[in-house]
């Protein structure tokens, strides 16, 4: 008899912080106490609260233990399971109220979320198809096979679901177009090439709830008339690949994939294709070329994949998060789906919350949630008492949402209006210490590296923009740079072949729009207001604080600091390389950085 279950989060962040060893300790301790048959240890997908990891949840109570280490993991067995005493030192303490939370239901990070896409992530064993079925898994497939394809598509159209990969195209219309396209065979493709820096929504779903994607792809196959699906996932996600592969095997075993699925005369199967790590392969036409075994380079649309996709056949391509919504829409109906979210962007959105925020991790909220709720209520605000400056959305293709828009409901259309994009859901919080010119340069550098090189504006133009940004950050900017950047950015946006190039200038345009003063400070005053751009810093000794300890002079690698013992020191600006080591070593706060 199983009396307890230990759910150990085996998401990427928890694994990195030692989940495997923690799990081993738990298993060992259970054996030592002879209760290994009574307590089941289950590794789940990502539970979302990444900076609380490794996380262990004890069921049936739901006790939420955080930051479990090899040293204290034994307590969960010896105290909680053997003696029935909660291990309070491993509970989460809410920083503002200083209240201890027993279950995830007591933690604001969780209570404000609406888990639809992530409903099984962290709750079930992703390797167990039975657990998925127990959570109504494959019910939607059964229901769909009793519907007509047109009815399925109508439900999707009515639901208003929009593609979660970034562009927000209505999913139902995509399915409809693929169904109506002439050509045979047709294909179903899942885009799991999540490439935005810091984004890991899709990985978590694939690792934590792989059957939901298999089920959705099978429904898609039935709806558009395809018998073959391809899961395209990047090689950087080995765990996702492993679990998805395993799930495919199980689904075949249970008759949810293969021939004559659920005796409905419908055949469908899925193969995995592993990407070699090019960001551009997340662009659908490049992705399809990559599946074909060709160099992943985008091609002109039209023709859209729905008309001519994989091997020039009609192809339905959606991203992981989009598919993850499908089974629940089929099970619960379009109205249920529309019950949360905004009118034009119904449903939820998963964000990867990162950057200067207390609680980083994966969060799922209704569309239309404000940035303030995301950053302050769920994210717990900015650490170190610093001020919120902006949030970067849409990764290298997006832009910033500034403090002025903290109360704006976030959905596909509102973010577009202020010059950024929803993207796949990366949300990076920036505080007052971030230099916006530097942030834009970082993202631009990413697209320069990831441009496939096919079209002139993206290949040559982004590189030119990057060099200009470098110049500006190095204090070599000159009059006219902002205008030149803007002009170049507009042409790149206007003439690039695919979405990567068309959106590559967004971080620059968006930061120029909201933080032109910072650009001007870099260019005209040769100052970085946030003290980030190294070449624009000046280190000076504050005479009333310097005690003449000589620490800075001894530390300076280029001997730019002179001064005798107990005398005020001086930095020779012509020698200073702005390395900052004097600033770091001074115990008296006598070095000023500006």
């Amino acid at each position, binding site marked *: 008899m199983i009396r307890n279950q230990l759910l150990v989060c085996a998401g990427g962040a928890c694994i990195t912080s030692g989940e495997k060893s923690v799990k081993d300790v738990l298993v060992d301790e259970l054996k030592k106490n002879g209760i290994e048959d009574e307590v089941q240890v289950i590794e789940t997908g990502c539970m979302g609260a990444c900076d609380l990891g490794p996380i262990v949840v004890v069921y049936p109570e739901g006790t939420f233990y955080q930051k479990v280490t090899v040293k204290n993991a034994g307590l969960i067995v010896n105290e909680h399971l053997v003696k029935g005493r909660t291990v309070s030192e491993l509970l989460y303490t809410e920083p503002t109220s200083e209240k201890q939370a027993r279950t995830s239901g007591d933690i604001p990070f969780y209570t404000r979320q609406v888990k639809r896409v992530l409903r099984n992530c962290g709750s079930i064993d992703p390797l167990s198809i039975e657990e998925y079925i127990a959570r109504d898994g494959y019910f939607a497939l059964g229901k769909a096979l009793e519907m007509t394809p047109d009815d399925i598509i109508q439900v999707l159209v009515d639901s208003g679901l929009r593609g979660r990969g970034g562009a927000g195209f209505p999913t139902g219309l995509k399915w409809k177009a693929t169904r109506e396209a002439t050509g045979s065979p047709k294909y179903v493709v899942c885009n799991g090439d999540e490439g935005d820096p810091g984004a890991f929504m899709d990985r978590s779903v694939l690792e934590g709830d792989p059957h939901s994607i298999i089920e959705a792809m099978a429904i898609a196959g039935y709806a558009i008339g395809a018998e073959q699906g391809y899961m395209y996932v990047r090689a950087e996600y080995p765990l996702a690949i492993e679990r998805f592969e395993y799930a495919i095997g199980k689904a075949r075993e249970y008759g949810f994939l293969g021939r004559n699925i659920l005796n409905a005369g419908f055949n469908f199967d899925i193969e995995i294709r592993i990407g070699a790590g090019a960001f551009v392969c997340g662009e659908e036409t490049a992705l399809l070329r990559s599946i074909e075994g060709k160099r992943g380079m985008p091609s002109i649309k039209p023709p859209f994949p729905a008309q001519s996709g994989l091997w020039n056949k009609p192809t339905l391509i959606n991203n992981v998060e989009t598919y993850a919504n499908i089974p629940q829409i089929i099970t619960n109906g379009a109205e249920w789906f529309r019950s949360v979210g905004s009118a034009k962007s119904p449903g939820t959105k998963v964000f990867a919350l990162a950057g200067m925020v207390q609680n980083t991790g994966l969060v799922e909220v209704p569309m239309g949630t404000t940035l303030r709720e995301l950053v302050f209520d769920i994210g717990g605000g900015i650490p170190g008492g610093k001020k919120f400056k902006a949030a970067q959305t849409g990764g290298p293709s997006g832009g910033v949402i500034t403090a002025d828009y903290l109360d704006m409901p976030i959905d596909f259309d509102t973010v577009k209006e202020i010059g950024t994009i929803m993207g796949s859901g990366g949300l990076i919080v920036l505080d007052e210490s971030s230099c916006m010119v530097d942030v834009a340069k970082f993202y631009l550098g990413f697209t320069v590296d990831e441009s496939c*090189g096919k079209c002139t504006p993206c*290949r040559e133009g982004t*590189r*030119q923009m990057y060099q200009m940004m470098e110049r500006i950050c190095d204090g070599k900017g000159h009059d006219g740079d902002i205008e030149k950047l803007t002009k170049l950015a507009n042409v790149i946006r206007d003439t690039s072949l695919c979405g990567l190039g068309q959106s590559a200038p967004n971080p620059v345009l968006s930061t120029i729009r909201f933080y032109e003063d910072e650009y001007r400070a870099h260019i005209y005053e040769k100052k970085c207001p946030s003290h980030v751009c190294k070449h624009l810093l000046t280190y000076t000794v504050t005479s009333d604080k310097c005690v003449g300890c000589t620490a800075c002079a001894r530390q300076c690698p280029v001997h730019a600091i002179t001064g005798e013992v107990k005398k005020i020191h001086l930095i020779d600006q012509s020698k200073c390389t702005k390395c900052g080591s004097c600033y770091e070593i001074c115990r008296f706060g006598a070095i000023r950085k500006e």
Partner: protein
Amino acid sequence: METRMLNVKINGRDYQVPDGTTILKAAREYAKIDVPTLCYLEGISEEGACAICVVEVKGARNLQRACVVKVSESMEVWTNTSRVREARKLNVELLLANHPKDCFTCEKSQICDLRELASELGVREVEFPRTRTELLPLDNTSLSLVRDPNKCVLCRRCVNVCAKVQSVYAIDIMGRGSNSTVSTFLDEGLGNVECVNCGQCLLVCPTGAITERSEIPDVWKALGNPDKVVVVETAPAVRVAIGEEFGMPDGTQATGKMAAALRSLGFDKVFDTDFSADLTIMEEGFELIGRIKNGGVLPLITSCSPGWVKFAETFFPKVLDHVSTCKSPQQMFGTVTKTYWAEKMGIDPRKIVVVSVMPCTAKKFEKERPEMKTAFHYWQEKLGLKDEEAFKDVDCVLTTREAAQMIREAGIDFTNLPDEDFDKPLGESTGAAVIFGATGGVMEAALRTAYEVLTKKSLAKLDFGDVRGLEGIKTADVDIDGTILKVAVANGLGNARVLMEQVQKGESPYHFIEIMCCPGGCLGGGGQPISDNPDIKQKRAEAIYKEDAGKPIRKSHENPEIKDIYKDFLGEPNSEKAHHLLHTEYCDRSCK
């Protein structure tokens, strides 16, 4: 089914174009407005990579690429707005930022598409600095071609022509983003991969990134050496194209001026490869007759085109016994000059320098093949030559373009030269040899001879229309006195591949196949003048067939000099001596 006509407004004026028409075609052909392009090559390179042909389309968020976007009903296109002009100009500037500014010395400077584009769009300054910090090394590995990646604008025309037209796939894009280059497998260089040296990439390259390996200095050096007897031979397709280099109308027959100009350059003898083309017909024709009569391997496939020969050796090594053992006319010529002619004239073969003028870059590779030293072996015993003294049958190969360049360097007024004849005895040729320059020509020439030899009857009509023309694959059933000879002709290696796959599967229905590496045959060769006339091959072909029709002798076996060489030197076609001197062997170049 009748094509639906669509209404389109271009720059405010209404046009009707057939469904499926691109904006580019609609603008150029219907509205008579040129939309500039760089990476576009109709039917071959239609990728929209360069972003030069952008136009404004009402309702579209971004500028659209005219070359690939098709007209839709009631589309409104603007080709000349400031937004369009600025975008085109800026994209050209971006390309120029990293392009070497050595137009003064660049071989392509007079015909550079990039330079022309910059000029047309009014680019007067490049406001962007160079972003590539290091110069990339030249690809010098090929015996035929040199690639300079620094001049490459990554338009992919070369990649597409190599893949789609020639089905060779020797080059593709390597690396990512601004580090991408056109390169070969593992960056091994053209000389070390499956490249067949056809030079089609060179013809389509919009800049000077691909050029032939020049042999002009070697030829000047030979001409300046009083101890050498320097003879030149000119291929059939050269005479109908070289005039273009001097501004003469496309399709001008410039045979006499070419002979005069070469003589004026200082060549001791100006001979004609057409002579050895006739010789090839004798050897290949008799090989065909022999194979048919004796149940030999069929179909027999021609071997004149060195690009095709390397293609066969690389991709179809198992069926090389189908390829005729005859050397190409260029190589037969070299051998005959350094044996028969040397003997006849009493000249030490070591003193002879054979220069050939070819429409071809692959010929530069061919002359370097190790087996192409037959004349040396012929003399080795007679003169007691040592191995290290081995000389090649053909010493230098000039492309049509290089020959024209030498004529320009010498200040010869080509267009006003009085016509001159070739020198004898290796200068006499027939119409059959002339048509070697066009696809189907070798086939037609062989048929003229084979028919008469087999039937001992005179052909009533010499023109075999079925094998003429520029289609990729042509087939015909030729009635030879009741026996049907099934023949096929392919030009362009993509088409050759189709016929060769049949041969490899043992399903080829033909007796005789002519294959020419380049589209259109030699007249479209990689060594020919670079033309922007889409009908250029047609024009050159017309000139070739005109030359044939005007020849007093039009059948190879009736060439009196050919009769002489068999009588005085070779014995009869396919004799042991002929085999020894005029035939060759092939090797397997596939990757194993």
